[in-house]
């Protein structure tokens, strides 16, 4: 593999202007000079999630800023429709995995950079994998994947190990809008904290799509939401990635549009509505990716104050941007709440544990419901679940939860949940 020997004189002339001397407002911990350069170029290991519109930009920016050990995960293959903005890909690459093609392209184009691709899901990797990085940047379009990544990095934080806290930089775009944010897991607001701030995916009232369609989207939703399950039954699920399924919907939606004198149903609109695709604008991706990479650079080098913590770009009505500190929520299911080490007797029953939780001064939970990561231990409501879990009350906790295992407690008297780490005495 290529090494640092590929560094030619003045390769980093511009970047070094920033790394060689502190400015008036650089972090007091900033150590100008060779130390920080060496950290950036030989030690820093950064993970990029997503090699799509944002990911291509992020990978290029990181490589050109001097990060040399970059890993990238993406589960998708290249589609012809990606080529207008995902500039690391060429027509010959269509059908190949994005992560692999992007890694090859960057390594060819920027000598000395090692990009390690993984073609698969983020969920395939465990804690040990994520622990090896200094920083993670997400350039994803899926809410679900971002929730998973944010929760995983929050859960990774181990009070005994400072290295377990991995800053997460999250970028996202929707048309002319976008945001970049810095998440310091367990310290600042996480992705889950801001879930209710997200734009909702467009959904039309079901009675409108059933009876009074006015837009081409209404006809497409009618075909996908109402007609597909009606005609195919509950077992044949609609596959958004199957062109034959999209064609079926398109034909039905077109006929309905004709009946209601609505124009504009096309095959690609059908695909777009069904997959909830929001048009991606290359330049919005470029702005957001650049912002993410600047933050990665600042965090990795301490050369300047980093974003605290949410940058919003709104380009739909002129150009407007706003930076603010999104606050951590006490009732956040991921980073809020608290946890407690609880040593209990190996003879203790579930019922006794519940009494303990109700009585203990520092906990005092009313009507606690308990589950482990694999089973419901005791649920207070609704009545049939209470009845189904009631036999567990007389069982020993030890028979349901291994030593070191965790119990999630929810209750109306808790902001969200409490996790108990159980050990036996």
């Amino acid at each position, binding site marked *: 593999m290529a090494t640092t020997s590929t560094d030619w004189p003045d390769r980093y002339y511009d970047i070094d202007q920033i790394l060689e001397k502190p400015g008036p407002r650089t972090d007091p911990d900033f150590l100008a000079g060779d130390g920080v350069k060496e950290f950036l170029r030989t030690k820093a290991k950064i993970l990029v999630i997503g090699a799509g519109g944002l990911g291509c930009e992020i990978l290029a920016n990181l490589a050109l800023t001097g990060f040399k050990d970059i890993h990238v995960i993406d589960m998708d293959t290249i589609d012809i429709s990606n080529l207008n903005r995902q500039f690391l890909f060429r027509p010959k690459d269509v059908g190949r995995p994005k992560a692999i093609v992007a890694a090859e392209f960057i390594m060819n184009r920027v000598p000395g950079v090692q990009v390690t691709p993984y073609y698969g899901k983020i969920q395939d990797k465990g804690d040990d994998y994520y622990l090896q990085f200094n920083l993670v940047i997400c350039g994803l379009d899926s809410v679900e994947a971002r929730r998973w990544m944010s929760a995983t990095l929050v859960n990774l934080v181990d009070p005994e190990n400072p290295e377990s806290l991995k800053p997460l930089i999250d970028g996202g775009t929707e048309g002319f809008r976008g945001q970049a944010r810095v998440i310091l897991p367990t310290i600042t607001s996480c992705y889950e904290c801001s879930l209710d701030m997200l734009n909702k995916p467009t959904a039309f009232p079901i009675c409108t799509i059933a009876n009074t369609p006015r837009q081409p989207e209404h006809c497409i939703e009618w075909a996908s939401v109402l007609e597909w399950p009606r005609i195919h039954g509950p077992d044949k699920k609609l596959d958004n990635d199957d062109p034959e399924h999209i064609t079926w919907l398109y034909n039905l939606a077109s006929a309905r549009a004709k009946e209601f004198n609505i124009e504009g149903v096309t095959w690609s609109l059908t695909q777009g509505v069904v997959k909830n695709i929001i048009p991606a604008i290359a330049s919005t991706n470029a702005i957001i990716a650049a912002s993410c990479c600047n933050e990665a650079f600042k965090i990795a080098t301490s050369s300047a104050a980093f974003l605290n913590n949410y940058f919003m770009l709104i380009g739909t009505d002129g150009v407007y941007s706003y930076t603010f500190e999104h606050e951590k929520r006490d009732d956040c299911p991921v980073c809020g709440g608290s946890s407690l080490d609880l040593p209990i007797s190996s003879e203790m029953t579930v019922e006794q544990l519940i009494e303990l939780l109700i009585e203990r001064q520092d906990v005092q939970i009313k009507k606690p419901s308990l589950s482990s990561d694999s089973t419901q231990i005791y649920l207070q409501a609704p009545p*049939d679940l209470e009845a189904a879990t009631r036999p567990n009350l007389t069982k020993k906790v030890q028979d349901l939860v291994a030593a070191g295992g*965790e119990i999630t407690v929810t209750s109306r008297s808790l902001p969200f949940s409490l996790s108990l780490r159980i050990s036996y005495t």
Partner: protein
Amino acid sequence: MIKIWSMKKNEDAAAKKKPKTSAAQIRVQKDLTELDLPSTMKTHFADPADLLNFTLTITPDEGMYKGGAFVFSFAINTNYPHDPPKVKCTQTIYHPNVDLEGNVCLNILREDWKPVLNLNSVMVGLQYLFLEPNPDDPLNKEAAAEMSRNRDQFISNVKASMRGQHLKGVQYANVLVR
């Protein structure tokens, strides 16, 4: 690298490792165990270990649907509460806001869903549909038209459908509480 750990020490809430249970799973546990259901609504879990799939039976104690037991299936995905639960009526019923496939026209199940809403809000919303059917948001157009045109005829259609009779070529489910 910035020294994040020192920022952490300034935080009074000391970090502790959290369990691997997903946020969606905990949120569903919280929603379910804090349900405050009137005696007219009951849940049923075919598999009590699976909190994401269950049915809700509504037995209205007033209004024109009194005497019936209406069963809805709930399917919650792992992106809850970003995504709303998927709710369908499992029987063929005569109702202006429920079609013959069991689709339900309830705004908070689609266009007005927000993560701050919960399963209790959805269940209360469903029950309300039986107390106050709304002919202005029709899914079963014929039922809605009948309700607007001739309320007495509509009520008699509701009663007949609940007994499992045929109406205009449709065989309705017998939903009477036995």
